[in-house]
């Protein structure tokens, strides 16, 4: 196991946000962390990255105790794709990617030609090598996410953490970035941990899933075994069900659509019926 978490408790101030978390993640696999807003997903990621101190428990990264590792050693093992990024100065996309070379580059040095080539290669891998000289702040949200992903790749770490990478993306880009993560995890034998909200994305692209409810693990295991109606209902609320479309695509959809104002004016009872119509993608 590249990532092994035992009895982890952490939080802000004195109040724990997550408690007694046990989970593992293996190389070449994508692990999704799911849960409702405020359930502690981001807190867990911040603990793994050692930005937030632990209150109890242990985190082992590649067999080493994470609490004993110096900052630049952690950065050689873990890279992070943040939820949203902006830059106060109009750096080019290539300059943004190059920053992740810091753990390897001496403090008084600038990136060498070799590092610049390797950063360009990371950009090519995410399909954005044409944007090298464009200012980071002038590209779209989806492209920025890809720049941040290229930056994490350029950091060349065995573990990558992504905090809701799909949050600000359109439908096509959500699938594009998840498919890319799937390929990268397999090709580079990386351990990828992603926080996600959409059960569909977890089901299509992730190998394992950890569901957190009110700061505790509600269920964990392979996606196929774990993402069931009962588990999803317990963690994400009772208005969710799993289904298969007429074209054979697995989907998670709401159980009922609450009556809307204009429908209520009709006083039609049709709206009170469960929403069973199948949705195709």
């Amino acid at each position: 196991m590249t990532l092994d978490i035992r009895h982890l408790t952490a939080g802000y101030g004195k109040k724990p946000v997550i408690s007694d978390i046990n989970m593992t993640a293996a190389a070449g696999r994508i692990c999704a962390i799911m849960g409702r807003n405020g359930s502690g997903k981001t807190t867990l990621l911040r603990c793994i990255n050692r930005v937030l101190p632990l209150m109890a428990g242990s985190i082992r990264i590649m067999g080493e105790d994470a609490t004993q590792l110096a900052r630049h050693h952690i950065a050689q093992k873990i890279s992070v794709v943040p939820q949203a990024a902006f830059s106060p100065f109009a750096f080019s996309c290539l300059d943004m990617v190059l920053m992740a070379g810091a753990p390897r580059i001496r403090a008084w040095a600038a990136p060498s030609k070799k590092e610049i080539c390797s950063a360009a290669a990371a950009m090519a891998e995410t399909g954005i090598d044409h944007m090298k000289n464009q200012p980071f702040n002038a590209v779209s949200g989806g492209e920025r996410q890809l720049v941040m992903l290229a930056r994490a790749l350029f950091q060349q770490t065995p573990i990558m953490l992504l905090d809701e990478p799909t949050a600000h993306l359109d439908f096509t880009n959500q699938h594009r970035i998840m498919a890319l993560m799937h390929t990268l995890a397999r090709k580079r034998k990386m351990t990828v941990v992603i926080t996600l909200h959409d059960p569909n994305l977890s089901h299509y692209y992730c190998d394992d899933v950890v569901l957190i409810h009110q700061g505790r693990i509600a269920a964990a295991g392979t996606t196929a075994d774990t993402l069931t109606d009962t588990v999803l209902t317990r963690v994400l609320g009772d208005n969710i069900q799993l289904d298969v479309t007429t074209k054979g695509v697995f989907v998670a959809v709401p159980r009922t659509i609450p009556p809307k104002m204009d429908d209520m004016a009709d006083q039609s009872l049709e709206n009170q019926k469960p929403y069973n119509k199948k949705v195709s993608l």
Partner: protein
Amino acid sequence: MKKKWAILGSVFFLAALICLCIGRYPIHPDQVIRLLLTGPGADNPATGNIADQMKIFWNIRVPRVIMTVLAGAGISTAGAVFQALFRNPLAAPDILGVTAGAGFGAALAIIFLVPAAIVIQTSAFVFGITAVTLAYILAGLSRDRSPSVLVISGIVISAIFQAGLSFIMYLANPYDQLAQIIFWTMGSFHTASWAKIQAILPVLVPGILALVLFSWRLNIMTQTEEDALSMGIPVMRWRIFYVVVSTLMVAAAVAAAGTVAWIGLIVPHIARYLSGPEHTRLIPMSAFLGGLFLMVMDTVARSVLLSEIPISIVTSFFGAPFLGYLVIHAGKARFSHDT
């Protein structure tokens, strides 16, 4: 890039030559070149006019030009560094209270200590550093480790030292001491001398070189603290390093010449316009332009009117409209966070 530096280099030498010619006692460019080639204090049996010229040139004008270049380069580099550290293109190097502290120190020396140049300079330097240290301690007492807490601490400490300065001015003898304090707070290089250069050179030159050397990491310091940590940079430690080096430089420059307004804020913007925001290019460009800009501004300050104009008046008068021009023409991306 090489071509750009060649042009800028020639502009600098031409400007330096012109600044050496202009003054209350104009010297012909031919003569300037001859004097430069002869060297200082050369055992020249020349009498009268030539000897006077040589004295003025080597003891007053040359040290003054060198000092403005050094101070301008130091303050501007510190400005670029502070804008990166505070992730804000409108941060100035005196944001943590170095100028307010130095002003208080200088006034204190003028009134209560011996009003000799070296005493004033030392007191200003010590109090400039003290102010920033206090701001850092105050910010350290907060649980919030973000740079904005540091900025607020800087404002608090600045206000206290400003009040102290005002109180000393209130106590000062209005016939000589008050005028001296006011002139100091507006800055001037008329006291430039080789002795002052000896005092500031060992701080400014290594300081600028250190910042040029460690300039690439400043790119990462402009990212959020968590992102910088994820990329393996212990942010707190590096922030202290950059603040210490910049503060020493600004304190040294301000202690020698008094407050020099605006250039720490504006020169990095002009530099960004020429070299882009990437710090390995921006820091050398800021140092270069800062030296050039302050040298020219000081020449204006000493030659436009019959009497010397305080340097801050000149730098504000020319600097502020220029920033206004950049706001209008440089485009939105340079000042705003998002597009």
